């Protein structure tokens, strides 16, 4: 198991409080909430596209302070429990932190990262609906996709020197990024993302998905299968950029429930363009992204 020093673990956990959200959601939340007649579904539609806002809402609602008996796994579910006004005010407090700069000191393009996270979320949801409808919740698969790489944005923001080094190793040597991160930092983004999710008492299925999305030796679950397949589809088709270039040898490591042909799965999902274009618009990047 990777180990982080207690000091580093504490630093990363508290750092997320100060982590700004993505530009589009911050701008839109500020605009929408000036209108007293803002539609709840419009606000939810913005918040649930932002990994930082989603992470922070799930953190707050699942906290021991509140003591809800059930784990809450989506923004929509959070609205049912907290009411739209509380969600609105939480989103405003997150927006007040500021916006993530597109390029941070690690040179990591957070908007292309966002495009990757959004498309993985959307594709994971589609995969669940088509291949695992009775075994997993499509909404949970979306959240798993949106948050699976959250550890990367934490690294980029708060351990930029180390993360630059890891990104360089992944690009130059062809090693997977998570392997390079472990070499440089001592733990990879999956471990750090899961560490935070567990600390904030997210549901076990979500924590496991974040932790295991690069692990080939764990018992697969329907939700993990959908996440890993969605990640592969989006990386192979370059929907956004997770800092982890696609490698053809990964084809042999894909979950078996979808069959052997990745492109056949993509075709079975129908037209992904609409999902990708929606994500591009939200990530505020053009077709070059």
């Amino acid at each position, binding site marked *: 198991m990777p180990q982080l020093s207690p000091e580093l673990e504490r630093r990363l956990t508290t750092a997320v409080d100060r982590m700004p959200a993505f530009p589009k959601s911050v701008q839109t939340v500020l605009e929408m909430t000036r209108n007293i007649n803002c*539609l*709840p*579904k419009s606000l*939810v539609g913005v918040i649930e596209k932002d990994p930082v806002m989603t992470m922070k809402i799930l953190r*707050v*609602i699942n*906290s021991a*302070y*509140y*003591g*809800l*008996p059930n784990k809450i796994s989506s923004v*929509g*579910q959070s*609205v*049912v*429990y*907290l*009411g*739209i*006004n*509380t969600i609105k*005010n*939480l989103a405003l*407090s997150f927006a007040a932190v500021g916006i993530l700069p597109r390029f941070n000191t690690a040179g990591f393009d957070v908007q292309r990262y966002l495009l990757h996270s959004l498309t993985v979320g959307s594709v994971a949801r589609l995969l669940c609906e088509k291949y695992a409808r009775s075994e997993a919740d*499509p*909404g949970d698969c979306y959240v798993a996709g949106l948050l699976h790489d959250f550890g990367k944005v934490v690294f980029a923001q708060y351990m930029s020197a180390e993360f630059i080094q890891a990104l360089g190793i992944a690009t130059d040597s062809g090693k997977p990024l998570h392997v390079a991160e472990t070499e440089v930092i001592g733990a990879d983004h999956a471990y750090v993302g899961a560490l935070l999710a567990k600390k904030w008492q997210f549901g076990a299925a979500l924590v496991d998905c974040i932790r295991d999305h690069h692990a080939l030796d764990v018992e697969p679950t329907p939700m993990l299968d959908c996440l890993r397949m969605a990640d592969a589809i989006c990386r192979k088709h370059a929907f956004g950029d997770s800092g982890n270039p696609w490698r053809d040898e990964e084809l042999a490591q894909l979950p078996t429930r979808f069959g052997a042909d990745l492109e056949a799965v993509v075709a079975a999902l129908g037209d992904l363009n609409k999902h990708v274009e929606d994500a591009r618009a939200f990530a505020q990047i053009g077709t070059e992204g």
Partner: protein
Amino acid sequence: MKVKMWGVRGSIPAPGPRTVRYGGNTTCIEVRSDDDSLVILDAGTGIFPLAQSLLARLPVQANIFITHTHWDHIQGLPFFVPLYIPGNQVCIHGAFDLVSMQGIEQVMNVQLQYSYFPIREAELKAGIEYVTLTIGESVNIGDARVTPVLLNHPVTDLGYRIECNGKSLFFTGDHEPWLNIYAPEDDEYAEYQAMVEQRQAELDAAIGPVDLLIVDTAYTQAEYPQKIGWGHGTYDTAIAMARRIGAKRLLCTHHEPTRSDDDLEKVFAEALARHPDPGCEILLASEGLEIVL
């Protein structure tokens, strides 16, 4: 267990000749357990006359349970006179606020600031304790047991179930039944509807069958479409709730502040006419109303 209504008005006090029969004070309910332990549900302006009634028998041991921190449920707190008398004990219970990230201890601190009130919290003479509640975890007050239940309002609202020697009541505080935020034609409608129905079932199970159900009925069915999202229920939604959980008696409160006594009786009669067989006794709350369970 005895229940006495000291404030039945919602939103803002509504004194005057038009409300003299039902009363103009905002929410406050006195509950006495069988061993005479005192539970006070909410500290609207109705807590002021309640406080006067307590002064005849000192020292006071009061357990105040705040459903939520909107003004009409807390504005009487600085006028709860037992707070100023040495030897009294006042324990204030309420929810954790996720937006301010503070417990119920902020409720007095916010009100007793220099610009808004002449006395500081440090100058209060009674022993004061704050208990921030965990949803679903019961608190014992004498021979009564109080259980907080999460409801639906624009701020965290805890309803309270009180049980004592086999008798029970539930007070919603302010509550609007959940609505689907999506239109039926939206892709997200079915998924959200399933969550709403699950939440409703959870709430019904948490309230359980009760001898007395006290519910926020601020609006009529006809008024409601203009008030969606304001966090209040109607006579019809309260009757539906009473039927679902198997309440023996339903007490309608949090009357809309512009509603006169005559209007209140009129809309109440219309609601009853829509539900000729409601399955329980239904009453309108009025200041001074006492119910023995």
